[in-house]
């Protein structure tokens, strides 16, 4: 069994009885054992659980019961999702001292109910505060396309595990770009749904007023299948929408038909981002997106998201910052400490601006259904790289990799990160952005790009 197989191909084979879930799980565990030492994507491998979940799927099928839409599909989750019996690390050494989680996160429980088989937990930036997964405690995750480069972050392990062919489906979280940045760098598909669409219960929050969870995959159909399996209300997450699921998979085949598509201009096209702009142009041409739209005050939106993130993110860790700041990853420590000192007036003005910006964006969506924008300013930087040249200036890599993602997530827009096919070159992604609750539209446009051959996520050689 090859690591290039899609989740839906695996599920079809298991459902039809052509292959047992136990064999699929064993093959996935063998691949992880062989490949993970090069990538450092996994921080825990749940082999015993995988074998028992797979055996349960095989038994279900043998009894003539429906084993689920994701029957036997091996998957793994960012290590901030609770896995019953395992300590939830959230990339932090401090959390390693905590007792094991007593129950699965809602997302994990729902994938299990759909027949998927959990094979492990994945590396990330400490407390999800970063775009590179250069974790001081658990080591950097390496990009499967070039192991000298970062996988992106903060869901770096989630992206690397899919891009490297270790598994076909993973989960991550996105506050300011933590699904979309690693998707871009690793050349895979990632979905950050609308804020409130998927339950975050049982996942460690970073900035609760901006946090989202979402799937990674190598095909749009897999991405939609994973997303659909996790939908539905959940009283354990106060912001999770109380409405029935709206499955996206059934509508994919309609492609981009009937969608009004435009490209984001201005802020999203600074100097020094030629590769990102070329990828965007390829996607725009394939979708016939001739017009451009201006995202009003995008730079200020990014600034407001940055300020809210710093203050709200730090408030969650204030007790540990007071007691044991030295135990934080140096990459997050000083940002958390500074965030804890942010004046309230700045934070509330940023929250008021957030409401204003949301209103302006809803006006933009009166005339368009989909906005295309680059996902990252550059392809994956080297591990340890400090600066990049963007907008005519040498700027710090770490805080700025999210410059194109950060303005959009803090108003909760659903976005698919789409890898533009560039054989022989490092991957880079495009954001396919829709109006709130229109994930299905963004996935349809992504599917159209995949069908046209403009987007592809081959397993890294």
């Amino acid at each position, binding site marked *: 069994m090859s690591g290039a197989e899609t989740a839906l191909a695996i599920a079809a084979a298991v459902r039809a009885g052509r292959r047992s879930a136990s064999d699929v799980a064993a093959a996935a565990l063998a691949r992880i054992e062989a490949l993970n030492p090069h990538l450092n994507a996994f921080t825990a491998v749940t082999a015993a659980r995988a074998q028992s979940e797979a055996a349960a799927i095989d038994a279900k099928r043998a009894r003539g019961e429906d084993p689920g839409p994701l029957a036997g599909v091996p998957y793994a989750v960012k290590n901030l999702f609770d896995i019953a019996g395992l300590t939830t690390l959230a990339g932090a050494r401090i959390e390693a001292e905590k007792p094991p989680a007593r129950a699965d996160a809602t997302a994990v429980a729902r994938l299990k109910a759909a027949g998927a088989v959990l094979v492990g937990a994945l590396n990330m930036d400490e407390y999800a505060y970063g775009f590179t997964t250069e974790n001081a405690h658990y080591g950097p995750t390496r990009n499967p396309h070039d192991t000298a480069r970062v996988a992106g972050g903060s869901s770096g392990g989630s992206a690397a595990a899919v891009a490297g062919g270790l598994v076909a489906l993973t989960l991550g979280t996105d506050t300011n770009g933590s699904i979309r940045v690693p998707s871009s760098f690793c050349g895979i598909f990632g979905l950050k749904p609308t804020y409130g669409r998927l339950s975050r219960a049982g996942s460690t929050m970073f900035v609760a*007023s901006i946090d989202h969870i979402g799937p990674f995959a190598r095909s749009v159909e897999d991405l939609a299948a994973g997303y659909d399996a996790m939908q539905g209300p959940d009283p354990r997450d106060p912001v999770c929408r109380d409405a029935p699921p709206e499955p996206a998979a059934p509508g994919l085949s309609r492609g981009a038909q009937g969608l009004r598509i435009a490209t984001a201009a201005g802020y999203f096209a600074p100097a020094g981002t030629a590769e990102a702009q070329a990828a965007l142009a390829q996607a725009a041409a394939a979708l016939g997106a001739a017009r451009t739209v201006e995202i009003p005050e995008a730079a200020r939106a990014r600034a407001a998201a940055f*300020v809210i993130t710093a203050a709200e993110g730090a408030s969650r860790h*204030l007790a540990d910052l007071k007691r044991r700041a030295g135990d934080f990853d140096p990459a997050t420590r000083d940002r958390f400490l500074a965030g804890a000192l942010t*004046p309230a007036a700045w934070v509330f*003005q940023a929250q008021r601006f*957030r409401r204003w910006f*949301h209103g302006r964006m809803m006006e933009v969506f009166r005339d368009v259904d989909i906005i295309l924008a680059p996902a990252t300013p550059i392809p994956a930087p080297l591990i340890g790289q400090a600066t990049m040249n963007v907008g005519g200036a040498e700027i710090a890599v770490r805080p700025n990799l999210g410059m194109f993602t950060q303005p959009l997530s803090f108003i*909760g827009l659903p976005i698919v990160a789409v890898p533009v096919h560039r054989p022989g070159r490092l991957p880079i992604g495009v954001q396919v952005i829709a109006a*709130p609750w229109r994930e299905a539209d963004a996935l349809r446009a992504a599917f159209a790009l995949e069908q046209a051959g403009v987007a592809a996520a081959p397993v890294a050689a």
Partner: protein
Amino acid sequence: MPAGIDPEAYLDAAAAAIGLAIAPEHRPGVILNLERIAALADTVMSFPLPEDEEPAPVFRP
């Protein structure tokens, strides 16, 4: 930081106000990040918002 505000003095006062002791070896990094936040906050603070624009602490699209 805003003109006329000494980041070192601000750090000392604000950290004391919330009972946060900042180790000497962490100070330079914290100052750098405070200044980064301040520069971005300035672009938000300088934007004229309508008075009736309410904040969105829990945001529901």
